[in-house]
């Protein structure tokens, strides 16, 4: 339990290291094309070309048009721009919006803000496995519904939503559809040439790209109100000097992801199975999310009669998350797991293991042993009184 021990990082859903080729590409750009892509001179145009190339790389990953890519600082900003921007743009037509209770904070808090501004938000519940039944969405759509926002892959549980089915319903009702793709783009197949999606949030640092850069996919013809002002960059939708090196890094990460995500998924599936096989026998353990069909990079489990914070400390030097990593400051039991029907106590004991490209069988084996040992040790501390 000491900080000196070698860290075992199983928190890839929080953030990933830079791919070596991405880092190299960024260095190259930093050295030779560190210019402002908006500058109207040779140097600026060099950087502008790099930005344009990165847009084609990201567009190729998601099978979209490069012109539909808007650069942002990450998925939080993309979600804010998509939701506030679309709601604002369409409010004269109606003020009803739809989302789920299990969305990331960067969606939930945006809708809460819109509620304060006079919008009406319907918060849909998932089934016990975390999925939204399309009929439930269908039933909630009204004449004045303007926007539906549903995430692709849940950051806590790995639950995968039926984006095609949900999108089809939105199209049918002519409602805009935003998808928080922070946990999916670069990790699973995302084909926007067939998926009926209008807006999708993307962040590079979840798929081995740089932190501090993301994108918003904006389908052709979709209008948004800008949320930041100043300068003519990016069709006035999102001003600010473009970080050409970060954008180049995102582009490179996208190209790498396109080539290897299928292999990554096989690797992750095997790791997840090994981990689950190793801890499934712990008394009172419960898997949070889908048994099958979820994103294999995440395994989220609760366990009876264990205090979550002590469990986390007992697991050191394993680096895993309790609740949402993006929100782990708060000691509140995860609202995502509560929405899946878990009790406060179950939600409080939840641990999210999230694996990545570099995760090895050995690390999984250490994780298994640590988990079993930690649960046993904490149970020893409180026999009988923990019923």
């Amino acid at each position, binding site marked *: *339990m000491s900080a000196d021990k070698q860290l075992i990082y199983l928190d890839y859903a929080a953030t990933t290291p830079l791919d070596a080729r991405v880092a190299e590409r960024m260095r190259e750009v930093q050295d030779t094309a560190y210019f402002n892509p908006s500058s109207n001179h040779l140097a600026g145009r060099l950087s502008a070309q790099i930005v344009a190339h990165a847009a084609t790389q990201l567009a190729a990953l998601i099978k979209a048009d490069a012109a539909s890519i808007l650069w942002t600082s990450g998925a939080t900003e993309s979600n804010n721009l998509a939701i506030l921007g679309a709601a604002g743009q369409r409010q004269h037509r109606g003020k009803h919006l739809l989302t789920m209770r299990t969305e990331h904070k960067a969606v939930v808090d945006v809708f809460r803000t819109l509620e304060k501004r006079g919008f009406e938000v319907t918060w849909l519940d998932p089934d016990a496995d975390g999925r939204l039944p399309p009929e439930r969405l269908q039933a909630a759509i009204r004449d004045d519904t303007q926007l539906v926002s549903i995430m692709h892959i849940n950051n806590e549980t790995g639950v995968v939503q039926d984006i095609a089915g949900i999108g089809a319903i939105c199209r049918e009702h002519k409602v805009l559809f935003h998808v928080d793709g922070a946990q999916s783009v670069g990790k699973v197949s995302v084909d926007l040439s067939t998926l009926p999606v209008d807006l999708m949030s993307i962040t590079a640092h979840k798929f081995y790209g740089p932190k501090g850069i993301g994108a918003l996919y904006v389908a052709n013809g979709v209008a948004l109100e800008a949320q930041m002002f100043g300068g003519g960059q990016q069709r006035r939708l999102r001003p600010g000097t473009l970080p050409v090196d970060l954008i180049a890094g995102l582009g490179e990460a996208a190209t790498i992801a396109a080539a290897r995500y299928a292999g990554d998924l096989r690797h992750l599936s095997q790791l997840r199975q090994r981990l689950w096989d190793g801890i499934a026998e712990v008394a009172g353990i419960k898997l949070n999310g889908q048994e099958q069909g979820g994103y294999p990079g995440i395994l989220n489990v609760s366990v009876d009669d264990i205090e979550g*914070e*002590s469990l986390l400390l007992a697991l050191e030097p394993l680096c895993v998350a309790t609740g949402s990593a993006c929100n782990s400051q708060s000691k509140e039991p995860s609202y995502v797991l509560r929405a899946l029907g878990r009790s406060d106590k179950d939600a409080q004991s939840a641990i999210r293991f999230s694996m990545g490209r570099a995760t090895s069988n050995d690390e999984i084996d250490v994780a298994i042993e640590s988990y079993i040992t930690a649960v046993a040790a904490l149970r*020893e*501390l409180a026999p009988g009184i*923990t019923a």
Partner: protein
Amino acid sequence: MSLEPYNSTVREYFAQPDHAGIVENGAIGYFEDQGMRIRLSVEVAHDRLLRLRFQTWGCPHVIAACEAFCRQFEGRPVADLKQFKSAPIMRDLAVPVEKTGRILVLEDTVRSLGQAIQDQTFQN
């Protein structure tokens, strides 16, 4: 941001809770609140707290507070229990303000333990 949430004492007591356990046939104090549960048990001889043990369902600070209490009071006169205050322990363990309530559960458990010792004494 998550700067170091546990000081070295908390880490030490959490890693080595020497006084975890139960004293068979000892006097027992118990309290629960705020989702935390603490049980203290003690063997009393010659008005002294001879062997002091704890069990708890709680966060690392609660576990460390229990261990700290046992270390401090084992061997001392039963009468000293009356003087127990959680404030010095909170200071030693650098308990964050939002957890103060949890540590007060220990105060209540100690009170419950004192009562149990008294009851046992009267029974004999």
